[in-house]
C-alpha cells in the first residue's frame, strides 16, 4: 500500500479535489437540509439535522413561527433537495428564496421546475453518484480480479478433472440454483437447508478428484481450460454495447433501486479489470517464487491466492479510476434519459429537466460542472496510477 500516498503527494490538486468531493458527499445532509443543525428550544439543545426525517415540527419553516426558539444554527444551504416552492419555479441563480422563515437566503444556483433548490440537489446528487459508482466498481474489482487470476494462471495450461467430478460439479450447481429458485418462488427459506450438504460436498470434491485420477479409470478425465472459459465470458459480456444492456435491463425492470443499479453496472464493468488482471498474472506466474511454491506442493488455488494475486492486482487496479468515472457517467446518463427510480436525487435528473426547457441554462450548467469535476478527479487518479512513480522521468505526464 506504499504507493497510494505517493500518488496524492504528486498532485496536490487531485488530493484537494478528491477530499472536497468525498466531504461534500459524506456531509450532504449537514451542508444542505431543511432542518437546523443546532437548535435552542427554551434552553434545551436539539440537533434535528442529524436525527430522522419524520419530525415536521423541527423543520425550519415551522420553527420560524415558533416563539420558543432562542437561537438556531442553519445549514449553509437551508433547503432540502425535495423541498418544493411553487412560488419560485425555475428562478435564475442568486434569486431570493420564498419559503417562509428563509426570506433572507438566496437560491445560489437557482431552482428547478418545481422550485427545488439546485445547489441542494447538486450536493445530494454527489452522494447518489459516488455510492452507485463505488459499489459498482467494488463488485467489478472482485469479479474481475478473481476471474482474471483464474484465466491468467491457467493460460496455456489445462486443468485435469475426472469426468465423474465434473458431472458432480454440474449436478451440484443445478441443484443449488434449482433449490434457490424453488425457495424463492414459494417464499419459504427452508429449502435453503439443501445448501449445507451440497457445500460440504463441494469442499470435498477436489480430494475426490485427486483420488479418482489415481484409480484405474483415470483415463476418463476431461481437460478443461479455464482461460478459454474466462475469455469466452469476457467476449460474451463485451459483445453487446454496455449502454444497450443497461437500457434494456432498466427499461424492463422499472424502478431499479440504488443497489440494483450498482450491481448491474458492476456486472457490466468487470471485463476490463479481468483482462488487465489476466495479463499481469500471466507476466507474474513465471517468476521463480511461483515455481518454488508449486514445487513445494502448494495447491494451485493457494498459489494463485497467496503468491500470484498479491503481486498482480496492483497493475490491474490502475483502471479503477476510469471505471469509477465511467460508472458516474453511466448513472447520470440513465437518470438523464429518465429510467431510474424517481425519488433519488441525481445530477442526471437535473440535466433531464433542462433538456425539456433549454432556456433554464442553470439546470444544465451547474450539475454538469459537478459531474465532470467528479469524473475528472477519478480519471486523473487513474492517469497518475498508470504512469507509476518509477517511470516518472520518462514523460511529463
Amino acid at each position, binding site marked *: 500500500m506504499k504507493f497510494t500516498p505517493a500518488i496524492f503527494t504528486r498532485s496536490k490538486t487531485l488530493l484537494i479535489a478528491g477530499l472536497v468531493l468525498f466531504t461534500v458527499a459524506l456531509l450532504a445532509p449537514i451542508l444542505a437540509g431543511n432542518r437546523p443543525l443546532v437548535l435552542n428550544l427554551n434552553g434545551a439543545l436539539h440537533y434535528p439535522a442529524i436525527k430522522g426525517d419524520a419530525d415536521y415540527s423541527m423543520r425550519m419553516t415551522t420553527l420560524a413561527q415558533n416563539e420558543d426558539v432562542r437561537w438556531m444554527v442553519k445549514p449553509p444551504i437551508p433547503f432540502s433537495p425535495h423541498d418544493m416552492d411553487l412560488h419560485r419555479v425555475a428562478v435564475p441563480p442568486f434569486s431570493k428564496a420564498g419559503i417562509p422563515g428563509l426570506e433572507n437566503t438566496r437560491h445560489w444556483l437557482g431552482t428547478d421546475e418545481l422550485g427545488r433548490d439546485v445547489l441542494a440537489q447538486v450536493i445530494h446528487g454527489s452522494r447518489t453518484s459516488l455510492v452507485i459508482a463505488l459499489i459498482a466498481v467494488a463488485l467489478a474489482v472482485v469479479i474481475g480480479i478473481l476471474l482474471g487470476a483464474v484465466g491468467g494462471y491457467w493460460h496455456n495450461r489445462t486443468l485435469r478433472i475426472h469426468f465423474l467430478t465434473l458431472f458432480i460439479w454440474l449436478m451440484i450447481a443445478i*441443484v443449488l440454483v*434449482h433449490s434457490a429458485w424453488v425457495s424463492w418462488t414459494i417464499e419459504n427459506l427452508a*429449502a435453503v437447508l439443501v445448501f449445507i450438504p451440497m457445500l460440504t460436498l463441494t469442499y470435498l470434491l477436489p480430494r475426490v478428484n485427486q483420488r479418482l485420477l489415481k484409480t484405474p479409470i483415470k483415463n476418463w478425465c476431461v481437460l478443461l481450460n479455464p482461460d478459454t472459459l474466462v475469455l469466452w465470458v469476457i467476449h460474451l459480456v*463485451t459483445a453487446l454495447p454496455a449502454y444497450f444492456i443497461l*437500457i434494456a435491463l432498466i427499461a424492463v425492470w422499472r424502478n431499479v433501486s440504488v443497489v440494483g443499479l450498482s450491481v448491474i453496472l458492476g456486472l457490466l464493468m468487470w471485463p476490463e479489470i479481468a483482462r488487465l488482471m489476466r495479463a499481469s498474472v500471466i507476466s507474474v506466474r513465471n517468476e521463480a517464487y511461483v515455481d518454488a511454491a508449486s514445487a513445494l506442493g502448494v495447491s494451485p488455488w493457494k498459489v494463485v491466492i497467496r503468491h500470484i494475486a498479491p503481486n498482480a492486482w496492483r497493475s490491474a487496479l490502475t483502471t479503477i479510476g476510469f471505471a469509477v468515472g465511467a460508472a458516474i457517467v453511466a448513472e447520470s446518463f440513465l437518470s438523464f434519459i429518465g429510467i431510474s427510480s424517481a425519488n433519488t436525487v441525481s445530477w442526471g435528473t437535473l440535466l433531464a429537466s433542462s*433538456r425539456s426547457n433549454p432556456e433554464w441554462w442553470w439546470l*444544465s450548467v451547474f450539475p454538469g460542472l459537478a459531474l465532470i469535476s467528479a469524473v475528472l478527479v477519478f480519471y486523473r487518479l487513474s492517469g497518475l496510477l498508470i504512469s507509476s512513480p518509477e517511470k516518472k522521468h520518462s514523460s511529463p505526464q
Partner: protein
Amino acid sequence: MAWRTLKRLLYWFPGLLSVCLLGFVLIQLSPGDPVLARLNLIPDAVSTHESIYETAAYQSTRVELGLNRAPFYLSVQPITVPDKLRSIAHPGRRKALQSLCIRRGDSSTVLDWYNAHIVLRFRLAESEPAMVQRIASEILLQSETEEILRRYRLLTEACQNAENAALVMQAARIAAKLNENQQGWKSLIPAFQWHGLNNQFHRWLFGDSGEGGLIRGDFGRSYRDNQPVAPIVASAFSQTLILAIAAWMLMFLVAVPGGLRLARIASPGKARFWLHLLLVLYSIPSYWLGTLMLTFLCSPDFLNWFPVAYKLMDIPENTSWLSRQLIIIYHLILPVTCWTAAGAAFLAIQTRKEAQAVMQSKGYLGAKARGLSDKQLMTNHVAPRALIPAIGWLGGLIPASLSGAVAIELIFSINGMGNLAFQSFHMRDYPVVMAIILIAALTTLIGTVVSDLLLHYIDPRTREMTTK
C-alpha cells in the same frame, strides 16, 4: 491471412449464438406479458380487467407467438410441476397453479382440482349472479390452500342453487385433499426434460414448418405496428451509420494530426496545459455537451444558429444534390461534434503517447542522424506507429458508435439505432430487441476483425506473431 480471418469468424460463431441465447434469456426473465404488448395493451391498465386473459384474441395470439411451447430444448423444473401448465393462457392462474404444485408436491390432485373448478365455473356462469362468478374466478388466483378453502365456504353460502352448492362442495373436497397429503419436499428434486425441436428458441432460430426464422433472414414482425422488423432496423441502422461515418472521419482527421503535433511541443508547460485541456474534454459526457449546445446554440434565448431536431424528411423535393448535401452537413454538425469531442480527446492523448515513445527510440534517432527532414520523420517513422492505438480502438468504435449514440440520438431526436433500441426496450417490442441485439453483436465481431486486419498491415510485429 484469409484463413486466419475465417478462423476468427468461425471462432465467433458460437459466441454469436450465445449472445442470441443471452438476449433470449433476458427476454424470458423480464416481467411483462409479450402477448399484451402484441395486442398493443398497456399491462398496468389491463391488470384490473382479468377478462382480457379469457378472450379468444389473447389465447390465439399466445399460440401465434409460440408461448405455449417450451422455451428451450432442455429444461430443469421441479419434478412436481407438470408440463401441462404451459397450455394455460391466464398468467396469474398459471403462476398460482405452479406455486400450488411446488408447495403441495401433488400435481395430479392439483390438476384434478383445476379441471373440477373449470367445470364448476361453466355451471356457475349459466345460473348464478356475477358476484358468485367473481369469487369463483378469484379462487384460481390463490396459491394457498387455506385461502382457497375459505373462498369455497364463501361460495357455498353465496350460491342460490342447491345443485350448484353441491358441485362447489365437491370441488372443495378435492382442494381439501391437497391439505392432507403434503409432499412439498418433492419439489426440491429437479427433473430434466427434453422438449425436442418444438420450442420457442428453435422456432425463433429456424422458423416454423419451413417458414420464417432467423436462418431465412426473417426477424419476425414488430409488435407495435405489425411491420416486418428487418426494414425498421435497416432504416435506423442507416441513420446511425451516416452519423458514425461523419464522426469517425472527424475524429481521425482532427485527433491523429493533433496528437502528432502535440508530441512535438517542446516546452513542458505548454504540453501539460494541452494535456490537461484534453483530459477535461475527455471527461465531458457527450450528452451534457449536447444539452449545453441545445441550450446555447439552438434556442431563441441565446444564439439560434442550429436546428434543434435532425429531420431530413423536411428537405423539399426540388433541391439540387449539392444543396441537399449541405443541408445534411448543416444538420450533422452539432450531433457529430458533441459525439466526437470526448473520443477525439482520448485518441489525441493516446497518439501523443505513442508518438513520444517512437521519438525516444533509437530508430528515430538513427533516422534523424541520417538527415531526414522533420516532415519525412513524421510521415515515415512516427505516424505509422502512432496510428496503432487509433486502429486498435477502431474495432471497439464501431459497436460503441451504436450505443454511444443513444444519448446523442435522444437529444437531437435522430431516428437511429439508439433511439430505436430505447423505444423498443420500453415498449417490450421483443422481435425488434432481438434484431438489435444480434446486429450489435455482429458489428462487434466485424469491428474486431477489421481492426485486426488493419493492424496486420500496419504493425509488422503482429504479423510475426501469427506465423508462429
